[in-house]
């Protein structure tokens, strides 16, 4: 259940920096450990860049979530871009269609506790991640 949330645009390179700052400040507020903050912010940076570069822009929603006594930060990246034809393939280390390292999706998945991806060709992509305290 979300207690509070914000939506931030991802329309240019400066927004990727902004998204990192937003993720950091929410992680700080929840008092995540420094390593957990760093992991969440790094994953946010990867996913925001994917939203921008592959999804042609979109948004990030940030919210504090609860599960029983646990609290966490959930980030949801959404775009209305071309979508991903083969998600299993895209999640492999080293898979890239853009000459990148292909570590954005697979790597950010390792950096968080929950990773959920939905994509439809021609409609867009939603990636949601959660880091629990």
């Amino acid at each position, binding site marked *: 259940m979300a207690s509070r949330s914000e939506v931030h645009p991802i329309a240019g*390179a*400066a927004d*990727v*920096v902004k998204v*990192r*700052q937003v993720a*950091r400040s929410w992680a700080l507020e929840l008092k995540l450990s*420094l*390593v957990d*903050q*760093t*992991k969440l*912010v*790094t994953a946010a*940076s*990867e996913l925001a*860049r994917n939203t921008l570069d592959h999804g042609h822009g979109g948004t990030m929603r940030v919210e504090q979530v609860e599960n029983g006594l646990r609290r966490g930060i959930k980030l949801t990246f959404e775009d209305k871009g071309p979508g991903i034809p083969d998600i299993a393939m895209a999640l492999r*280390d080293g898979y890239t269609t853009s000459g*990148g*390292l292909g*570590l*954005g999706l*697979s*790597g*950010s998945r*390792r*950096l968080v506790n929950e990773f959920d991806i939905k994509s439809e060709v021609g409609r867009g992509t939603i990636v949601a991640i959660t880091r629990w305290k």
Partner: protein
Amino acid sequence: MERIPILKLGDFLLVTIQVDMHDQLAITLQDDLTTQIAKHASRGVLIDISSLEIVDSFIGRMLANIAAMSKVLDAQTVLTGMQPAVAITLVELGMSLSGIKTALNVERGMEILRQFSDQSYELQDANGFQE
């Protein structure tokens, strides 16, 4: 245009990354460094990232590119001051940065650069390349 300053210190170039870089700034730094290494025939590049709070795959790739390009230009790159949380995260992300020399701080980094440049001069002497 916004740029990260590059300091020339004798045979070496010194860069301190203090801002949360957007992607273009990182690309500009990579280009500027390559140009400066060639221009000054620098023997080493030290990049201090002790103020960087994250290194993602984009910045990681830029650092690896700088190291690779400086190698081609016969200069050694050393990365200094990486925060432990950043190092842990980078490894989990899947970037080992195994091709880059690292040092705990700027002083140690400078030592490595001096050693490298002394060694390669000796090597040149032994091969008779230098008078």
